């Protein structure tokens, strides 16, 4: 054998590039395959073309629209080697759709079959509140880190338990299946089956029938977070919840808990408001009742008061009447008495007058004044002739004086 050549990387890549450039057949060639993954940036479309187990990165300097992953296409262009990054790229002039790819057809058929079996229906949804979340994903990838950081940032006290599994390659299926089995034994509240984005073929395991059935049969609700947002897998359909990316799944967990807490607090508030309302209702009723009692009592007291005062007035009036009556009687009597006395007085006066008159008439003086004279002998009145004898010295008493005489004859 001759001596082995030693080249620098640029020398090697330059050499490889010249080989590619010299191979004319590679300058204008049509290739058929399925679109594996596609992205468009600045008017340039990057996509992978797959067939069987093989894959080639392609680029076309135009915007590919309405071409879905799994579409079978015919691509025309040239194969180029890029010395700078040592990559082989197919630079396409055109991309022509020629039907759905085999893999896509297989996927569609399997999906229909599983759907008919009801594997996609009534999948257990994540519970209303999550205390522990199991994550089936690669121990090494960024996925578990993303999930942890999202959940931690929300500070919701959710436990995250990693169930390490290989998520691509031949061992992936069994690895994920056994992890899922373990999760179901441990009874986590929910499990996220997570895988970061990758070329479409990298997600093949998530389209396996075995895994789809295991996910559909999981008692622990499954959140499928496989690939990018645009990729749908059978695992997504069999899960209780499908999230575009692992971060979105972590957000969903947080949202579930936040939503629960919000509902919980709202309910608590409602209960407290309702209780408060019932309480104040009762209080108001009691207060009203108390007030009406007080009013009634006040009224009753007022009425009793008036009754007493009125009765007292009646008493006073009655006694006044009685007293007035008696007073009147007394006055009447007194008046009567006075009248009687007056009468008596008058009567007496009259009688006296009469008597006086009578007396007056029979008065000696009165008789004397009519020419008669009283005759006395010594100290005695001579009322009869027999009282006198001749020679008696007598006194003749007149009304205005007297005279002395001597009896000369008695008959």
């Amino acid at each position: 054998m001759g001596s082995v050549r030693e080249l620098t990387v640029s020398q090697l890549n330059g050499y490889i590039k010249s080989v590619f450039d010299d191979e004319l057949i590679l300058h204008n060639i049509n290739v058929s395959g399925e679109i594996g993954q596609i992205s468009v940036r600045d008017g340039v479309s990057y996509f992978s073309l797959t067939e069987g187990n093989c894959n080639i990165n392609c680029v076309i300097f135009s915007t590919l629209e309405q071409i879905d992953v799994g579409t079978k296409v015919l691509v025309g262009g040239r194969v180029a080697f890029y010395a700078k990054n040592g990559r082989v790229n197919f630079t396409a002039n055109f991309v022509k759709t020629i039907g759905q790819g085999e893999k896509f057809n297989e996927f569609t058929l399997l999906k229909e079959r599983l759907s008919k079996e009801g594997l996609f229906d009534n999948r257990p949804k994540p519970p209303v509140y999550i205390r522990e979340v199991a994550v089936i994903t690669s121990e090494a990838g960024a996925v578990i880190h993303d999930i942890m950081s999202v959940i931690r940032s929300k500070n919701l006290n959710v436990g995250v338990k990693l169930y390490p599994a290989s998520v691509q390659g031949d061992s992936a299926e069994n690895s994920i299946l056994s992890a899922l089995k373990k999760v179901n034994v441990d009874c986590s509240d929910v499990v996220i089956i997570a895988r970061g984005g990758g070329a479409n073929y990298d997600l093949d395991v998530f389209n396996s029938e075995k895994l789809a059935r295991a996910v559909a049969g999981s008692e622990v609700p499954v959140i499928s977070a496989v690939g990018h947002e645009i990729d749908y897998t059978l695992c997504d359909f069999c899960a209780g919840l499908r999230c575009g990316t692992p971060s979105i799944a972590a957000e969903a967990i947080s949202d579930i808990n936040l939503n629960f807490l919000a509902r919980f607090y709202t309910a608590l508030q409602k209960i407290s408001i309702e209780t408060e309302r019932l309480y104040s209702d009762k209080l108001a009723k009691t207060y009203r009742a108390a007030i009406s009692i007080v009013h009634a009592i006040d009224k009753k007291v007022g009425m009793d008061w008036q009754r007493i005062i009125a009765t007292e007035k009646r008493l006073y009036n009655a006694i006044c009447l009685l007293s007035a009556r008696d007073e009147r009687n007394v006055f009447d009597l007194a008046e009567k008495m006075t009248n009687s006395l007056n009468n008596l007085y008058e009567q007496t006066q009259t009688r006296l007058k009469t008597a006086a008159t009578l007396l007056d008439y029979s008065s000696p003086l009165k008789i004397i004044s009519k020419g008669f004279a009283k005759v006395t002998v010594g100290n005695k009145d001579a009322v009869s002739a027999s009282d006198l004898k001749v020679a008696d010295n007598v006194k003749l008493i007149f009304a205005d004086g007297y005279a002395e005489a001597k009896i000369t004859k008695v008959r």
Partner: protein
Amino acid sequence: MALEQDLKKLEDIAEKLERGGISLNEGIALYENGIELAKSCLNDLNASKDKISAIKEEMAKLTNSQQEG
């Protein structure tokens, strides 16, 4: 209810007195009796009023403390 009975008695006395046909002495005796009763009724009523105000105040305190609390 003593007050109610006393009040009734008082009114009976008033009626008797109003009806008349009695001597002043009898009337005065009734009047004295009536005034005594009226005084006792008013005393009772005053006591009731005091009691009511006390209860009212208690109530007001309670409701105020509820409204503050």
